[in-house]
C-alpha cells in the first residue's frame, strides 16, 4: 500500500500556488512513513499520469473554479472527479486531473482511492504568495489531508522543520518591487543577495 499527496498549481501565480504550498506545509510539519510520498508537481497537464502510477491512494490538493468565497475548501471523491465531462483540448496542456485519473483507471494501474482537496482562490495574479484567506485555508487543508492519510494507516509524526512561509518562491529579492510576505523574509532575502564580484557560494 502506498499513498501520494500531490500538490498542483503554479507557485508564481498567487493563490494558484495553494497545492504546492500545502504539500510543503505538510513536509515541514510532519514526518510520514516512507510509503507516503509528498509531491509538488506544479502544472503537469497529462504528465500527472506518471505520478499516479504505482500508488494505491492519492490525495490531490489544488485550486478550484466555481462559486464560493475565497479560501473556501471543498473535498471531492475520485468518482466525482472522473464524472466531469472532458472538453476538446485546444492546447494539449489544459488541466487534466479527471482525464489523467480516467487514463490510469482504463490502463488498469489505479489508483482507486482518490480525493481532491480544493480551495477557492482569491487572486491568480502574477506574483508570489497566497492571499490572506487562502493562506488560512492552507492550514485547514493540511489537517484534512493529514487525517485522510492517517485513516489509511499511516501515522504522521509532528516535527516542525522550519517555517513554511519561507518557501523559496515566497522570498522577495530587493529591487524587484514586490512586497515580501513577512518582514523576516525580507531580512533573509537581503542576506542571501548575490555578492557582486565574488564567487558563488
Amino acid at each position, binding site marked *: 500500500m502506498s499513498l501520494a499527496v500531490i500538490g498542483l*498549481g*503554479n*507557485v*508564481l*501565480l498567487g493563490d494558484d500556488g495553494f497545492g504546492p504550498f500545502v504539500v510543503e506545509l505538510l513536509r515541514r510539519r510532519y514526518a510520514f512513513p516512507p510509503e507516503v510520498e509528498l509531491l509538488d*508537481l*506544479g*502544472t*503537469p*497537464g497529462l*504528465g500527472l*499520469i*506518471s505520478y499516479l*502510477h504505482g500508488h494505491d491512494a492519492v490525495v490531490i490538493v*489544488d*485550486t*478550484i*473554479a*466555481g*462559486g464560493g468565497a475565497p479560501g473556501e475548501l471543498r473535498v471531492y471523491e475520485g468518482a466525482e472527479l*472522473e*464524472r*466531469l*465531462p*472532458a*472538453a*476538446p*483540448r*485546444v*492546447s*494539449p*496542456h*489544459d*488541466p487534466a*486531473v*479527471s*482525464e489523467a485519473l*480516467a*487514463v490510469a*483507471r*482504463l*490502463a488498469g*494501474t489505479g489508483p482507486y482511492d482518490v480525493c481532491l482537496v*480544493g480551495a477557492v*482562490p482569491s487572486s491568480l495574479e*502574477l*506574483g*508570489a504568495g497566497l492571499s490572506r484567506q487562502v493562506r488560512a485555508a492552507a492550514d485547514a487543508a493540511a489537517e484534512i489531508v493529514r487525517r485522510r492519510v492517517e485513516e489509511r494507516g499511516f501515522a504522521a509524526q509532528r516535527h516542525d522543520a522550519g517555517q513554511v512561509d519561507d518557501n*523559496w*518562491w515566497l522570498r522577495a*529579492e530587493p*529591487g*524587484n518591487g514586490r512586497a515580501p510576505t513577512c518582514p523576516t523574509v525580507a531580512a533573509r532575502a537581503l542576506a*542571501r543577495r*548575490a*555578492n*557582486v*564580484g565574488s*564567487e*558563488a557560494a
Partner: protein
Amino acid sequence: MELHVQARAPGPPGGGLRGEPAMRRITIDPVTRIEGHLRIDTEVDGGAVSKAWASCTMWRGIETILRGRDPREAWVFAQRFCGVCTTVHAMASVRAVEDALGLDVPLNAQLIRNLILIAHALHDHIVHFYHLSALDWVDVAAIPKADPTKAAAIAASLSDWPGNSPQEMKKVQGKVVALLQSGQLGIFANGYWGHPAMKLPPEVNLLALTHYFQALDFQRKANQVVAILGGKTPHIQNLAVGGVMNAINFDSLATLNLDRLYMIKGLFDEIVPFVQQVYLPDACAIAGFYPDWFGIGAGVRNYLAVPDLPVDGKATAFDLPGGRILGGEQASVKPITGARDEVFRQGVVEDLTHAWYKGRGAQHPWQGETDPYYTDFRDDGKYTWVKAPRFEGKPMQVGPLANVLVGYAEQHALTRKWTDDALARVSKIAGRPVGVDRLQSTMGRYLSRAVRSAMLAELALKHWERLVDNISKGDTTSYQAPSFPKGPVEGVGLHEAPRGTLSHWVVIKDGVLSNYQAVVPTTWNASPRDEGGLPGPYEASLIGTPIADPEKPLEILRTVHSFDPCMACACHTLDPAGRTIATVQVL
C-alpha cells in the same frame, strides 16, 4: 459528446457577416475561470478556412517576476513558467547566464544536461503523439469492428516489436467495448468519433490504441531518467550556473556512480526500441493513411532551429545542427552556429503591434518591455497576449519540422538517415512517393516529431557512452563557479526544445537581473500578425483548411495540435463544477 456547440445568429463580433450565409465564423475558445488560454478564430468560406486569428487569452509576462533577482537562482523560477516544459526553461536560463558571463561548462555537465534534455524530449514527444493528439486521427468508435488477429498482422508488417500479439490487441479491444457499453466515456468523450474526416481502417485504430496504453510505460521510463539525473521531476534540482550539482565518483554510493549510469542505460535500452520500432512506424502508418494532410497546413515556410546537444565545454560543436530556411527552399539554408552567432543574437525581435502591450513595432529582447495594455479582441487591432517574434524581420515556424528540414538541408547524416527511412515507409503505405518537401504540412509536423524522436533515441546511447568514457578518463569535474562583473552584461541561452527554438535573454547589472525575456517556441508559432500585417504560423497554416462540419471543426484542431501548442500550462485550476470548459462557437 460533451462538446458544447453554440450556434448564434450571424452578426458581430465577426463583423460583416450578416446576410452572408456562405461564410461562417468559428471560434474555438476554452473558457476557463482564468480567462482561457489559446483561442482560435476562423472564417470559413465555401467549406474552407479563409481567415484565421490565434489569440492567447492569458497574460504571458511571467518573466517580469525575475527582475531584481539573483541570476544564479533564475532557473529555479524559470522552470515554473510552464508545468509541462519545466526542464527546458531551467536549461535555457542557466545557459543564458553562462553566456552573459562567458563561462564555459565542464564536459561532464554538458553531457549530463544533454541526457536530461534527450530523455525529457522523448517523454514529451511520446505523450504528444499518443496521449495528446492521436485521437484526432484514431477513431475509437471503430475499434469494436476490428479483427485483432489482422491488427497484429498489420503491426508485424510494420515492425518486429514484440508487444504486438493478437492477445494484446484483443485485450485492448475488450477494454474499449466495455467502455463503450458503460456509456461512461471519460477521456474519450472529447473525441470527434465517427467524424467524416476519420480514415483509418478499424485494425489500425486498434493498433494505435494498443500502443497508446503501452506508451504510458515508456513515457514514464523516460521521465525516470530525468529524475535519476535531475534529482527530482518535475522541477529538476541538479542545475547550477556553471554546470551541474551531480557529484561524480564511481566508488561512492551517494554520487553519480556506475550503478546509476547503468540504471540509465537500462532505461534507454527499453525506450529506444519503443521509439524506433513503435512510435516512428505508427506515425508513418497514420501519415500513410492520411496522405491528403501532406497538402494541408503548410503556413509560414520560413523555419528556424538552433543547434543543441553540445559535445564540448564551450558549446561550439553540437550533435543537432541549427539554421534558418526561407520560403521553404532547402538551398536558402543558413547555419546558426550557437549562442555566440551574431546572426541569431541580432536577428530576433518581438513586434507589439497586435499584442496587448503598450507600443507598436519591434523590440530586441534585451530591450524588451512587457507593459500590458488590454483592449478587446479586435480583428484589425490588438487581439492576443502573445508578442510577434520575428527573425530577420520575418515570421518563422519552429519545432521538430524546422529541426528536420534544417538538418536535411545541411546534409546532417543522422537527420537524413531517419527522414529518408520515414518517408520510404510512408510512401509504401500511401502507395505514392512522398518526398521531403511534403513535410511542409500538418502531417509533416507529426512525422517530423517522430523522426526527431528516432534521432534523439540514437543520440541518447551515444551521449551516455561519451559521459562514461570521459569519466573513465579520470575527469570528474561537473561545476565551474561563476563570478559576476560590475556593470551590465547581456546573454542569451538557447535550447532546441520539444516545441522548437527556445531563447532566454538576460541583462545582468552588478550581479542582479535587470531584464529577462523568454522567447518561447509557442510564441513563434502562435504569433499574431506583425506591423506589416504578416500572420504567424498557426494563422497562416489554417488558411485553406477544409472543414467538413463547422459544428465539429476537427480539421482545425488537427493543424493546431500538429504544432504541439503549449500555452495553457502557466496556470492550473480544476473546474469541479463540471462546466464545459471549452466552447466552439459557430457564428
